[in-house]
């Protein structure tokens, strides 16, 4: 299984390497705009829990960006499946579905980690240094694992690129804004907080923010992300199994 998984991951790395000169600016534009618009313009003078809004925002952007970049692997799989037909090459190779899913999820996690590095650098440019301790990276990893696994499952379920875009518009984008990224979830009405509690990004934002401030995180968030990630990974594995006609 290991070699099959590494072959899939290696392909993702090669594609990433080819696109890197274009991807780095693309990954930088949105966070940069959020930092300028929300961090400087809107959030100027605002403090949340003793931190400036910019300090509050950067971990939120880390959570959001790692989610969107990990989930972006779904588009890559769809392109490989519907336009390049490369998915058939993997299906006809002697590798297990588990190896395929693991390789793609690792690909998604790598993209996510890259985007986090970009945000950390942008943060430094804006004068904010976050604590990049092991727990911070663990929370980023778990968040990426959740959404990369979701992405692989979704990529197998959708029938076209348009379906994929629809899922992103109705699920990923709202979550990106409401999952505690730009403002604390406790500013919402109580009924809304109850709903938002079930979003994985809410827990990811919480874990990433507390670890980046150097405080002890709520371990329940880590536990929950690991469980959700495991469930999505299992679903992805089953979806790949069913992807054969």
């Amino acid at each position, binding site marked *: 299984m290991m*070699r*099959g998984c*590494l*072959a*899939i991951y*290696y*392909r993702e790395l*090669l*594609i990433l390497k*080819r*696109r890197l000169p274009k991807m780095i600016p693309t990954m930088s534009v949105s966070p940069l705009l959020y930092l300028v618009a929300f961090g400087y313009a809107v959030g100027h003078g605002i403090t949340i829990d003793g931190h400036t809004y910019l300090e509050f925002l950067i971990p939120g952007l880390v959570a959001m960006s790692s989610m969107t970049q990990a989930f972006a692997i779904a588009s890559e799989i769809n392109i*490989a499946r519907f336009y*390049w*037909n*490369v998915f*058939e*090459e*993997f*299906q*006809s*190779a*002697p*590798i*297990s579905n588990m190896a395929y899913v693991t390789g793609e999820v690792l690909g998604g996690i790598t993209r996510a980690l890259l985007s986090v590095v970009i945000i950390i650098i942008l943060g430094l440019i804006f004068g904010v240094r976050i604590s990049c301790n092991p727990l911070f990276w663990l929370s980023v990893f778990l968040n990426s694992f959740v959404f990369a696994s979701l992405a692989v499952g979704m990529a197998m379920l959708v029938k076209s690129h348009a379906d994929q875009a629809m899922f992103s518009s109705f699920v990923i984008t709202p979550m990106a804004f409401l999952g505690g990224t730009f403002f604390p979830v406790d500013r919402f009405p109580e009924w809304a907080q109850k709903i938002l509690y079930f979003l994985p990004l809410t827990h990811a934002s919480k874990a990433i923010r507390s670890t980046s401030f150097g405080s002890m995180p709520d371990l329940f968030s880590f536990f929950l992300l690991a469980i959700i990630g495991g469930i999505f990974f299992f679903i992805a594995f089953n979806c790949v199994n069913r992807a*054969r*006609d």
Partner: protein
Amino acid sequence: MIRIEDISKCYKNIHALRGVSLHVPEGELFAYLGPNGAGKSTTIRILTGLTRLDSGDAYLNGFHIEKETLKAKRQCGMVPQSINLDSELSVFENLDIHGRLFNMQRKDRNEQIQKILEYVELNDRKESQVKKLSGGMKRRLMIARAMIHSPKILFLDEPTVGLDASIRRRIWALIKRIEQSGTTIFLTTHYIEEAEFLAKRVAFLDEGKIVAVNTPERLMSQMGTWAVDRILDNQIETEYFKIREKANRYIALQEEGLTLRRVNLEDAFLKLTGRKVK
């Protein structure tokens, strides 16, 4: 060796395959001939693990394709009908990924890639991005990729579709060379001349059923040797003759507009199914 026993496949209400049985011995170049939608690609997709079969059994070199999937997949190389290369990556990278998928060690991979690129005459394009290759080069690269792990069985699904005549002939020469190396080749095509030129044996597939299996010569000889075509309003009426003189005499007795030619597999297919291959 390929053994197929009574396989069937149904997509919703469409019966793609209805009880197909076949045996292709080791080292044979076998052609699967039929019109579009006859079930050719479905058979290959089943044999290479891309599609599940509804009933029946299929074996590649003795390995059951559903029960021993990974072992069965290791036996074969697959060249699908549509180009499925990573166009952003280089020729070498495409081959390298395939070698990794088939669990080849780095040294073996590099040696095989070098060898196979020379074999398909693409060694000077090793570092080129795939999207910069011509259609014929991409086809040769796909064959090279399928051969990199030295499979015992090679599946070619319409390998020359959409290529011009000269490139098609080049691909045929390559397929012939692969056959000479002892690889079993299962080829689907709807090009009559491709099956005639390449195959040792041919199966006619029509509406998901095999209607005949034999050597091209035997299938054609059932019709005679010579055919005289008469072009009517919207169709061609054909008379068959064993001896050329008889065909010439027949032409002499008729009005003008008749064409004499050799019998081909299309004639045999038409007789058995009432339909043309193309």
